[in-house]
């Protein structure tokens, strides 16, 4: 079998051995329901508190303001829908951007059907939101600004602190989807003017099916899942203790290793980008070169289509993605690439490679060679390339 070169860490990651080890006792030994009164359950309770503390510390916020969810999508839905509901009497206007994840976009579209008004801010060609655009969009009836911390496709890091400050200046709540950023770049939610923040375990070598929403103390946000009194009555459902424990371990390691790990990833990232740009013509890098997640690489190869590229890479054991994994199966080109101004046929030819700590320079060299071969092969097959060549002959 071919060696697997996994370059889709933004889609999901392997759960770390240390994380699995931390979780295991909570499946079959300390399996007690954290809400029970007997002593046996106190291990579950303590384990949950331990993770809460790790995350609170990581974000520089009080641990009791961390609420566990089943993942990033639930956290996004919760933050947006419950804010919309809780602050309805103040207004019905929400501001977001054109490059949000579907968990935010589709939630906003849902709210539009329910009578809310949503402004989708444009981004520049790097995917950056202009603070003055936010400032201009805020209205007296604006109740929420939700802007992602970093984009999942093109890796662009938004000026969150500045955007949050603008929202606050106008007395508007500020939520950020930090699913791609948390654990990859330093975040202090308090200093960065963040009122709510979503994150997800499986993006940082933690387990799937667990995430959290930070809700600043004092916000009137009600529960999204009603029922039992878990999570201080804000999120019902028997606590997923093993996954919460795993999340804690994953966050702990992600924060500890962040500096070293991401320095290495940045180096590989830039090496990969530089070589491809030099060695494959008619290629562009999507997303900001400077305000960029350490592990994100995103190219558009002119004249070719993404899925073909993915399948050919797959045949060489290389796992990559074209646009967002969540929307594969869909035929539309990525809304993010369209928002940064790419024409359709170029958006269709995009490739996302997201690095992880296990990727080596040898892996990347192999990927570069394969990319050169495959892109050239697909171009030879492409009527668009044929037209281009004929025109410029």
């Amino acid at each position, binding site marked *: 079998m071919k060696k697997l070169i996994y370059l889709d860490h933004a889609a999901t990651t392997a759960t770390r051995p240390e994380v699995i080890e931390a979780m295991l006792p909570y499946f079959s030994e300390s399996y007690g329901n954290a809400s029970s009164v007997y002593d046996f359950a106190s291990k579950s309770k303590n384990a949950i508190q331990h993770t809460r503390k790790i995350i609170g510390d990581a974000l520089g916020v009080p641990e009791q303001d961390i609420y566990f969810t089943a993942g990033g999508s639930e956290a996004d839905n919760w933050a947006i829908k419950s804010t919309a509901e809780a602050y309805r009497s103040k207004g019905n206007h929400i501001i977001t951007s054109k490059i949000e994840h579907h968990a935010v976009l589709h939630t906003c579209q849902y709210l539009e059907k329910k009578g809310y008004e949503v402004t989708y801010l444009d981004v520049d060609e790097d995917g950056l939101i202009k603070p003055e655009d936010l400032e201009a969009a805020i209205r007296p009836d604006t109740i929420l600004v939700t802007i992602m911390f970093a984009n999942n496709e093109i890796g662009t890091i938004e000026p969150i602190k500045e955007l949050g400050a603008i929202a606050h200046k106008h007395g508007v709540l500020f939520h950020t989807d930090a699913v791609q950023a948390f654990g990859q770049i330093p975040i202090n939610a308090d200093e960065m003017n963040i009122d709510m923040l979503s994150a997800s375990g499986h993006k940082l070598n933690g387990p799937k099916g667990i995430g959290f929403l930070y809700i600043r103390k004092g916000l009137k946000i009600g529960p999204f899942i009603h029922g039992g009194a878990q999570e201080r009555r804000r999120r019902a459902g028997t606590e997923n203790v093993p996954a919460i424990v795993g999340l804690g371990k994953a966050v702990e390691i992600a924060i500890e290793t962040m500096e070293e790990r991401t320095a290495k990833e940045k180096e590989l990232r830039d090496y990969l980008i530089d070589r491809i740009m030099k060695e494959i013509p008619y290629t562009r890098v999507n997303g900001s070169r400077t305000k960029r997640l350490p592990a994100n690489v995103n190219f558009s190869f002119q*004249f*070719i*289509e*993404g*899925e*073909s590229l993915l*399948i050919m890479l797959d*045949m060489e054991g290389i796992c990559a993605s074209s646009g967002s994994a969540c929307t594969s*199966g*869909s*035929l539309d*080109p990525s809304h993010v690439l369209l928002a940064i101004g790419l*024409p*359709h*046929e170029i958006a*269709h030819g995009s490739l996302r490679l997201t690095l992880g700590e296990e990727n080596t320079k040898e892996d990347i060299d192999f990927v570069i060679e394969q990319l050169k071969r495959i892109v050239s092969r697909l171009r*030879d*097959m*492409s*009527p*668009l390339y*044929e037209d281009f060549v004929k025109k410029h002959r």
Partner: protein
Amino acid sequence: MYSEKVMDHFQNPRNVGEIEEASGVGTVGNAKCGDIMRMYLDIDEETQIIREAKFKTFGCGAAVATSSMATELVKGKTVEEALKVTNKAVMEALDGLPPVKVHCSLLAEEAIHAALWDYAEKHHIKIEGLQKPKSDISEEEENEEW
């Protein structure tokens, strides 16, 4: 997600390329939807037999495979016979396509028609049963499946 036949025709596409001074060329699809197929036919004017078929395709795995299969299916057939190569025939020859990729086979059918139409126009003939092909097979609305 693809059948072995599809994968084979994607990995080893038959008849990729151009035909210089082809009897007919047709290009269908559009970049918005992410699929463009161009088909070249070399047709014997006497016998009306398709001597050679070539294609170039910008598109997904299924688009490449259906183009490849379509060229295989029309080769050696008369124009009239080629006209009867439907998208169903292409799909069957490939052992099926995922539902979301069925439009690729329609595109392949249209590509054949477009090339034949071009041939007919250039040679001022009328091919019985051939209608002016749509240059663009646009996506159906994505339906909720449930």
